[in-house]
């Protein structure tokens, strides 16, 4: 019933810059929804429009059944973590955290109880009496997060709430957020440009590109079936390999390899996509062998990435065991799982068909 729905929402800034372009989105009640995209793609703008901090240029925003375009932010009952924290510079950490509770007249003891809970969760206890100017970036970010978590809103809107934390703290916070989400069951819209964050936390991910929605779906769905080459390269690390190919006579030809397809698909120039883990050095059954030559092996620790060059000079990456030893320049035969292969239109970049 507190579904958040954007219908054809567009934001054009005063300078004529269109930051969000005709976005349609439905965020279900209680969902952990992640907005993922590169810097400047319009994630913050989208979130701020939902919160009411930016007027919507055209289109409609609904929360539940109610159209919210003109509703004042204070009447939307949303908690927000700002990308730049937006702490109250004149208040201590404690003052910042309790600002909203005081405003809403939460009784003193209750305030203290909830404050203690959040302080412990975010590790803020030592800093309660400091002003924001005396905190590090990560500490400020935790205060900003804490301020939101002390609310019981219709939804939490988090704009890159973990961007400034160190890797360890970030991982810890991810878990905390997911736990919190499970416990309170409120809708969370979480903005990030970190795909790991998106993959690990989201119920569904929306990938934005240039102000438009590129794809919405469950993490694995988006990972496996990217809707276009942008999503394909923006997800996964290293990203999906894209090589040029041709669709002809019911088969796709690329890098001197040929893979027969369903007759349904047409003919023309295509981009062929496959993820690094869909290749193997070993010739497993039903795999398509492709000839390549070794460029380099980059060790990651748990495993390594083999960079190889295909006939025609296109480079691909492939996940291999950490102890793989290969001489640069030596020929190598790699084996592709044909079921995982994806085709995109060379012109539009859109996915063409799902393979059988």
């Amino acid at each position, binding site marked *: 019933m507190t579904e958040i729905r954007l219908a054809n929402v567009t934001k054009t800034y005063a300078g004529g810059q269109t930051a969000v372009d005709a976005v349609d989105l439905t965020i279900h009640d209680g969902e952990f929804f992640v907005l993922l995209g590169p810097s400047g793609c319009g994630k913050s703008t989208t979130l701020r429009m939902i919160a*009411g901090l930016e007027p919507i240029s055209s289109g409609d925003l609904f929360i539940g059944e109610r159209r919210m375009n003109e509703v004042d932010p*204070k009447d939307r009952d949303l908690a927000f973590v700002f990308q730049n924290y*937006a702490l109250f510079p004149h208040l201590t950490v404690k003052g910042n955290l309790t600002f909203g509770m005081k405003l809403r007249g939460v009784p003193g003891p209750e305030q203290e109880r909830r404050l203690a809970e959040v302080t412990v969760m975010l590790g803020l206890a030592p800093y309660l009496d400091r002003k924001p100017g005396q905190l590090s970036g990560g500490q400020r970010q935790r205060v900003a997060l804490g301020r939101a978590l002390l609310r019981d809103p219709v939804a939490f809107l988090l704009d890159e709430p973990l961007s400034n934390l160190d890797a360890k703290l970030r991982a810890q916070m991810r878990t905390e957020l997911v736990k919190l989400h499970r416990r309170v069951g409120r809708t969370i819209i979480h903005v990030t440009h970190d795909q790991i964050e998106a993959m690990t936390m989201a119920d569904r991910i929306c990938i934005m590109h240039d102000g438009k929605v590129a794809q919405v779906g469950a993490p694995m769905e988006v990972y496996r079936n990217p809707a276009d080459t942008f999503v394909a390269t923006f997800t996964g690390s290293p990203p999906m390999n894209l090589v040029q190919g041709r669709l002809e006579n019911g088969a796709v030809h690329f890098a001197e390899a040929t893979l027969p397809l369903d007759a349904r698909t047409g003919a023309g120039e295509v981009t062929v996509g496959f993820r690094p883990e869909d290749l193997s050095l070993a010739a497993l059954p039903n795999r398509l062998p492709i000839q390549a030559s070794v460029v380099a092996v980059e060790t990651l620790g748990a495993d390594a990435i083999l960079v190889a060059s295909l006939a025609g000079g296109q480079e691909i990456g492939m996940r291999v065991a950490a102890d793989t030893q290969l001489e640069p320049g030596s020929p190598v035969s790699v084996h592709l799982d044909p079921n995982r292969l994806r085709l995109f239109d060379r012109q539009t970049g859109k996915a063409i068909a799902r393979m059988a």
Partner: protein
Amino acid sequence: MICVGAATFAAAAPTLRAGPPAVDGQPSPQPEDKLFMTAAIAQRDRWFGFAMTLPGLFALVLVVLFPILFTLWTSTSDFTLLKPSNDAFVGLSHYTQAFATPEFRHALSVTLAFVVAVVILEFLVGFAVALALDKVEHGKAVYYLILLFPLLMNPIVVGLIWKMFLHPTLGIVNYVLSLVGIPPVDWLGVPDNAFWTVVAVDIWHQVSFMIVLLLAGLASLPKEPYEAARLEGAGTIRCFFWITLPLMRPVIVVTLLIRLIFAVKTYDIIYIMTRGGPGQATELVSYYIYRRAFVGLDVSQASAMAVILLLAVLALTAWLHRYMRSLAQ
């Protein structure tokens, strides 16, 4: 072995430097030596820094302190325009004389009332206007220009214009009032009216100062805390009291202080509009001290009064500053 070495060191130490005496044959430990050296460097740096500030300090003393010291000196001697020299020392008699002068005490109390009235009213009006203007999106430059206009006017001109406007029978103000059936008001001919008229004219003249400073302050406030507060559910009034006011505090303090100090020095408007009258209703202390020196020819007495005024303003400034700081806690 170690003890022997230490003893030699201790014996040698006093000739090297006047360090702390070694206790029980133990030499002062090594780190203290380093400390001594860094302290010496710090000392040298301090002297260097001090030397670098000397020219500036000298200029400051010359420009700021000298006239004040001269005033102090004059106030303890017997300098009149007829005998312009500072050679006779009379102690603090001019100070006791000042407090024994009913007119001076009266002028001080009128000035206090005037300063409190104009500073508070100008602040309230100025803040309200600044808040309203802060929301204006188009034509801000035009507003600024119009607002700056009175401020750019010479106070003498302001006084003359308003004296003309407020002329009880020939002025435009009473004429306009008569159009809506209000009988003519004697703006300057009745003591109480005159005081408030002068206050009002000063507000007209100086309120822009407050507006412009406060507006600059408001414009420089970060936007984000407001967004955060609105999302927390704060309305306009809460935002004002919980965010704007505390964030503006430094600007407010400075604005109030500057305005307060200038208000104490108000002189021209009085000179043009009322000459301290009717009766003694607008007898501001700056104008009184001026007359004491140049009409009464009694420069030393006037200096003593000026020093008293200076001390009063200093005390007021310090108090306001501390009060405002205590509000912050």
